[in-house]
């Protein structure tokens, strides 16, 4: 276990380092640099040049990269071109809301998907299995942004049951008005539940037909023990591996949902920075979000290795 954990951690560190290089490359090779962006069209060429010098953009890329990277290591993500303040401030302002959203979503998704997957897998081909499979298959094909708009139209605009936007909502209001979370969480969770429950179901079906389960049955192992001790840990592996991958859906879903409901989170800040071409902010926020996704997949891999050590997740 320890050896595997070390290997996986090393891979994670390499991924993170590569990620930093990629983010920097992608954003610094852009046509036109920060000095062009910060100036309006009416600024003269010498003003742009002066600003370029002031922002220290005239140095070679490698030097700028080492500067940026060493800043990150010490917790300095750079300075926003739009607000002029540190990127770290933007992050701390917004990260709470996004974390709450992601955590609540995961807290909904995992138990729901596991229960559905087990229930369907136990009675493969039964009525419940067939109906859940059809629903997940159809729901999985509805894009997040379409689902969000349909739910907003139906539940908040027509029926008025749930709030349609978060405009004017502070972080403190979340605890008072949990209704705010219902629609965003539903939208992000919908496709994750579909993907996960299908994997758990497939895992259950495969394990239930395995030779060792038949043998345990013949030996008279009680059904409860059989399910809890022998079937579940093995059946959970494809589900957890899928969980490592649905981190992607989580980030994508959060980006969409924050835009639709005007949630003041990290994703909104990121999209706004992209629109304003605020390169340092984009670099910083993208790095943090991607690092979070990496951590998530790392945790899922370690957990599934703990459950079933023989599966080689790394390869």
């Amino acid at each position, binding site marked *: 276990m320890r050896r595997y954990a070390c290997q996986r951690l090393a891979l994670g560190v390499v991924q993170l380092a590569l990620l930093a290089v990629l983010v920097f490359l992608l954003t610094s090779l*852009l046509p036109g640099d920060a000095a062009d962006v910060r100036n309006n069209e009416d600024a003269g060429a010498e003003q742009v040049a002066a600003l370029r010098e002031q922002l220290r953009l005239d140095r070679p890329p490698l030097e700028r990269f080492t500067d940026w990277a060493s800043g990150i290591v010490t917790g300095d993500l750079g300075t926003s071109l739009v607000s002029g303040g540190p990127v770290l401030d933007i992050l701390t302002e917004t990260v709470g809301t996004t974390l709450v959203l992601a955590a609540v979503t995961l807290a909904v998704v995992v138990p729901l998907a596991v229960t559905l997957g087990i229930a369907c897998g136990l009675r493969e*081909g039964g009525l419940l299995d067939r109906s859940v499979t059809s629903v997940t298959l159809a729901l999985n094909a509805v894009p*997040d942004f*379409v689902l969000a708009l349909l739910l907003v139209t139906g539940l908040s*605009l027509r029926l008025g049951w749930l709030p349609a936007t978060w405009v004017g909502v502070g972080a403190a209001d979340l605890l008072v008005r949990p209704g705010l979370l219902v629609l965003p969480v539903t939208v992000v969770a919908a496709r994750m539940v579909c993907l996960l429950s299908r994997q758990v179901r497939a895992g259950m079906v495969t394990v239930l037909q395995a030779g060792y389960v038949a043998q345990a049955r013949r030996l008279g192992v009680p059904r409860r023990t059989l399910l809890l001790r022998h079937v579940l840990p093995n059946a959970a592996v494809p589900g957890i591996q899928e969980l490592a991958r649905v981190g992607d859906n989580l980030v994508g879903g959060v*980006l969409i949902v924050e835009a639709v409901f005007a949630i003041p989170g990290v994703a909104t800040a990121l999209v706004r920075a992209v629109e304003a071409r605020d390169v340092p902010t984009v670099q910083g926020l993208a790095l943090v979000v991607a690092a979070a996704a*990496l951590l998530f997949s790392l945790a899922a891999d370690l957990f599934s290795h703990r459950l079933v050590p023989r599966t080689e997740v790394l390869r």
Partner: protein
Amino acid sequence: MKLMERPGARPGHGRIPLAVAPLGSVLVALPLGVAVLGPLFAESPAAGVSAPYATSDARYPLGTDGLGRDVLALLLHGGRSALGMALGAVAIAYLVGGLVGLLAASARRRWADELLIRPLDVLLPLPTLLVISVVAVGWRGSPLAIALAVAAVNVPPVARLVRGAALDAASSPVTEAMRLQGESRIRVQLDHIARSVITPVAADIGTRITLAVFLVGSANFLGLGLNPTAPDWAVSIARGREGLLLQPWAVLAPAAMLVMFTVGLNLLADRLLGRSRRTREDVR
């Protein structure tokens, strides 16, 4: 003993027993037809031909959007970019990823395999929409850049899938028998391995196109892709949401097109996946 372990007693497979394939084909064909042939039937939508958010009448059967453009014309013109970018991205991803996967699987040296696949593994857990938003900082409004970004994030999973499927086929008894019979390496590779890779690949292409449509749509919806007045389904959905109650068709019509396409593709892919799983079980 062997016979008893065969999972032959699996009727129904837990899949939807309806005539799924024709339904899926129809669902895919309709939006695709609209996308390909649509522009032939309508002039490109101009702003201000009518009042904004007008409800449907004889001249504009689906009403107009916030800029006073004919929603039907928008719908007929919006498919090319919405589906074209996604299809192009998947094609590029398969061209590059498929090649890397096949090369890795057929590499005679282990280090060559590792060298080809490991770097892609490192990129695998990157959030796709995040990559697109970073690309969009510099190349906003360029369909090519967005399509290339979608293709790039799809290369690692495609390469892994193709490599896995090819390795499965390469270690099968059929391959061994062919080799023992003295068939040439090329014949084994092309005749047997390439053919047995096709089914899992076909199923994967189905789900991958769905994902690409989502990604391209999400990028356009967020305003990271095409410019906000482009006649694209996802852009129309993003624009139309301001007048959702006044003129729901501006959102519902393009949304229906996208959903029909992805539901249909998922049905077809699911069916292919079920079939490939069944044949693999029969062989075993």
